[in-house]
């Protein structure tokens, strides 16, 4: 629940962030700012480093240099030194470009597993919880079913995740990410592989989730119609460098973007 006082405040600040693998630079000197409640797009050609930025934000890789700050309830955290599960607890949720569900588990379990971090456990009390978990378990199950209902998956609750059609697996990824109770949601190509009708549904759903749960969203997407439709601001990444940022209209007419992103087609035309 973000109170109205925080609207317009920064939720995420990346300053001079660089990520090197050996001699290879995946992300270099990136500055990015997200304000509470924004829906921001991150676009760029394949291999531009978009997913690397998500990995930096969720603790998969610590930045080689630079600062990643996440602010929630006036508390500023430096994500650079935090472990992935702690970043998740802090309120950053994500989905994956190449779907990474717990494939052999039922749909409902995928969501329940992500929800249960709300009751963190230590090695010692894990066993004690075992014997007093009834009520908490019921609550977790009900909330999971609610999320499945929102994502249109309630009928599939007991199906194994791997048996769902592709579009539904994508929706389950979002349901699972929502179950971690994020305030900042990172969506990595949520519409990849979807047909136009499914994409339109998803676009609507993302807008609804954002309002209902007061989310700030950072979206990686290849589907330009989706990005230009829903995003308020867009960052364009190429070869690990931010080459442009601005409103969708500004981005569409930015010559650097046209060259990097659509370059050859425009040149051919």
């Amino acid at each position: 629940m973000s109170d109205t006082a925080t609207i317009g405040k920064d939720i995420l600040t990346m300053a001079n962030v660089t990520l090197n693998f050996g001699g290879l630079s995946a992300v270099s000197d990136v500055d990015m700012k997200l304000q509470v409640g924004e829906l921001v797009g991150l676009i760029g050609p394949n291999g531009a480093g978009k997913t690397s930025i998500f990995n930096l934000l969720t603790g998969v890789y610590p930045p080689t240099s630079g600062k990643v700050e996440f602010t929630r309830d006036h508390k500023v955290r430096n994500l650079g030194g935090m472990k992935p599960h702690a970043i998740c607890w802090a309120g950053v949720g994500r989905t994956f470009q190449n779907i990474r569900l717990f494939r052999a588990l039922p749909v409902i379990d995928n969501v329940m597993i992500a929800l249960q971090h709300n009751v963190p456990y230590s090695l010692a009390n894990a066993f004690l919880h075992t014997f007093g978990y009834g009520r908490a378990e019921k609550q977790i199950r009900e909330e999971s079913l609610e999320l499945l209902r929102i994502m249109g998956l309630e009928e599939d609750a007991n199906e194994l995740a791997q048996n769902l059609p592709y579009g539904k697996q994508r929706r389950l990824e979002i349901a699972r990410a929502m179950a971690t109770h994020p305030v900042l949601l990172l969506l990595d190509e949520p519409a990849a592989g979807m047909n136009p009708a499914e994409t339109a549904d998803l676009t609507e759903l993302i807008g609804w989730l954002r309002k209902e749960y007061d989310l700030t969203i950072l979206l990686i997407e290849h589907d330009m119609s989706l990005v230009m439709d829903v995003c308020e601001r867009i960052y364009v990444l190429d070869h690990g460098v931010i080459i442009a940022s601005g409103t969708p209209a500004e981005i569409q007419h930015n010559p650097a973007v046209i060259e990097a992103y659509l370059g050859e087609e425009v040149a051919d035309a």
Partner: protein
Amino acid sequence: MEVFQQLINGLSLGSIYALIALGYTMVYGIIQLINFAHGDVLMVGAFVGWFSMTTLHMNVFAALVTAMAACAMLGVIIERVAYKPLRNSTRIAALITAIGVSLFLEYVMMYFVGANPKAYPDLTGFMAGSFTIHGVIIKNIQLVIIGISVLLMIILQFIVQRTRVGKAMRAVSQDADAARLMGINVDNTISITFAIGSALAGAAGVMWGLYYISINPLMGLMPGLKAFVAAVFGGIGLIPGALLGAYAVGFIETIAKGVGLSTYSDAVVFLVLILILIIKPAGLLGKNTKEKV
């Protein structure tokens, strides 16, 4: 009647193997490590039980619980000290480390208690008894072993299927990186897996001592190896596979002894393993999945 006699013997032996095999398979399921020190955790459990009963004069059940608790701690320490630093290295490095941990436990124990076998105290009361049904001799201790094992398996099933720890374990075994990003503390989950698996091995160690009386610092080798066979037999990484494999190994072994192949009973077990793996390389319940690249 001979068949039924072997059946009851196989059932009690298989129960002990099952407890050990569960630890093997759970650890493999979660970090893809064959924990070759697992049999030696059983050995430590047997000695903790022996020490609790002889020196501390505990009763059998108190000794069993003490051994389980001690082994749970030992398992966590082994994981944190020996395996965790190698989590991102090659699997062969972790495997060799496991063998090192195994030898370490064996010879540290030998340093403290000597190489000579120690004897478990004589069974008393109900557990010392036995009865005969139609010529089949059933020792009460066999029933106790089967009963305790089944109880522990039910508790394990409950933990894995119904609790959040169990859910976290299953999530980590599916995709540790995704689990981490969904807020699961993967390090703690792995520690808990080691604790549970080692506690089961500790229980198996005490029951081994109660059944076979004689224990020594190298005793963990054979049961460890058989339980590993059992886990592979059923499909390593799968809990039902470990149970099925363990009882199969128990029965094969006692049947081999029953038909006069006592000397070769271990060889028969391994022969059957080889045959199973030729026919079903992933084990009885395992699915053949292509390695994802």
